[in-house]
């Protein structure tokens, strides 16, 4: 479980996060949603330590991550897997080398064991046999799936996904969403997905935290989201005419 308490973050005097708190349980898909500039990616980066919050704390199963030293953080980071918006695969490495990279760095497995793990991860994301391809030879959806394979290669306890559907067609987006949900349930990971994709919200949002202008405006599940009367949330989720019509049928 990950718990964030009263997170504040400013950049050059402009306050981006204004006291965000929340609890993200393991084995369920937790979503952070909000419009562009609402602070969701900044919150995610504060949680994984890419940004240092001005105040507040991030607790990984009771361990306060924010005051940790560089060396202490490494131990927590070994338990984190992350899928980036642009996949962030290493261009100079093949798919196999990308997935094997954390294993090379942090395990004493022999090459055969590592290759088996790579094959297992690739099979899990339905990309078996693509080991020798370079990222430049992959489609957007395949890159995301390799990103997921790399993220799960070390059996992470915590899985972070930054806009996993951006730039993907609706069908591929659903494939990625379902994959994230399956992995979360299968490995009991604490999964946090930052998104503004409404299919994801409705499809996999077991717990949703809605941010607006750097503040937490609402939290709940995808089943509850249709029944709120918070204007900011309704304006965001049901922005299109189609969604408005769909809401009326809920």
């Amino acid at each position, binding site marked *: 479980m990950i718990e964030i308490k009263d997170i504040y973050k400013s950049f050059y005097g402009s306050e981006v996060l204004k006291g965000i708190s929340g609890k993200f349980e393991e084995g369920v898909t937790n979503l952070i949603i909000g419009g562009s500039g609402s602070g969701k990616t900044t919150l995610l980066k504060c949680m994984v330590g890419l940004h240092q919050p001005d105040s507040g704390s991030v607790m990984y199963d009771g361990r306060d991550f924010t005051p940790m030293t560089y060396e202490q953080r490494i131990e927590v980071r070994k338990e984190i897997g992350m899928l980036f918006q*642009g996949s962030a695969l290493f*261009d100079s490495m093949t798919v196999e080398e990308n997935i094997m990279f*954390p294993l090379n760095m942090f395990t004493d497995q022999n090459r055969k064991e590592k290759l088996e793990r790579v094959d297992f991860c690739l099979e899990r994301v339905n990309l078996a046999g693509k080991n020798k391809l370079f990222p430049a030879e992959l489609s957007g959806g395949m890159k995301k799936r390799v990103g997921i394979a790399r993220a799960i290669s070390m059996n992470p306890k915590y899985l972070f996904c930054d806009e996993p559907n951006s730039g993907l067609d609706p069908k591929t987006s659903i494939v990625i969403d379902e994959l994230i949900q399956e992995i979360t349930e299968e490995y009991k990971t604490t999964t946090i997905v930052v998104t503004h994709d409404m299919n994801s919200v409705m499809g996999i949002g077991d717990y949703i935290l809605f941010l607006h202008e750097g503040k937490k405006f609402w939290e709940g599940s995808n089943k509850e989201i249709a029944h709120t009367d918070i204007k900011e949330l309704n304006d965001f989720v049901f922005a299109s005419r189609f969604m408005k019509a769909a809401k009326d049928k809920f």
Partner: protein
Amino acid sequence: MNFTNFGRYILLLKSVFRRPEKLKIYLKEIAKQMDYVGVGSLGLIAIISTFIGAVMTLQIAFQLVSDFIPKTIIGSVNRDSSILELSPTISAIVLAGKIGSAISSEIGSMRVTEQIDALEIMGINAPGYLILPKIISGITMVPMLVIISMFLSITGGYIGGSVSGAVTPAEYIQGITTDFNPYTITVALVKAFVFGFIITSVPAYEGFYVRGGALEVSQASTRAVVISCISILACDYIVTQLLL
């Protein structure tokens, strides 16, 4: 570089020299970088050094037109100029353009495509993994390239002098073997070591802190080459002042 940048540069270097996570992987990366910096630059350095040596011989011969000055002096001047100044400094400036821009672009691209963030999230010391192998390859391969450059520059002078008739081969060889002070080689290697560090660390710093996209990466690359060249010339003066 202003003071803020200099401070960040020092802090980055502190991170670079942290204990590696796995030495074997770092050694593999160092070997790769040595191949790129050393072997990959050999052809360019060879061509430039040979021509500079040849041109130097012709220019020295042109300036020393006097019956009172023996022609053997052409070889001596060419030798000392090549060893002390031309080989280390010109090689370093050329390498700053070739290697420096490549390092800055590579690391900058990794930054804007979140590959550096991915390394950090995995618990890997990104400055160490990305920059340390480059610095080690710079401080080892640049001195080697400079030694080769010295040899080729002096050889180029021999060829240029012989072909043009500015100096006979015998006079040239007598010149380069007369009053040779081996300490000049030490000075040149100290310079090469310092330049190798600058050529790799300054562009790495510029690339590492890029913010934005493709435009900012190219701007960082240009800045890296300019700052490297100025730093090389400033350090050239300081090392010369200290050691000679």
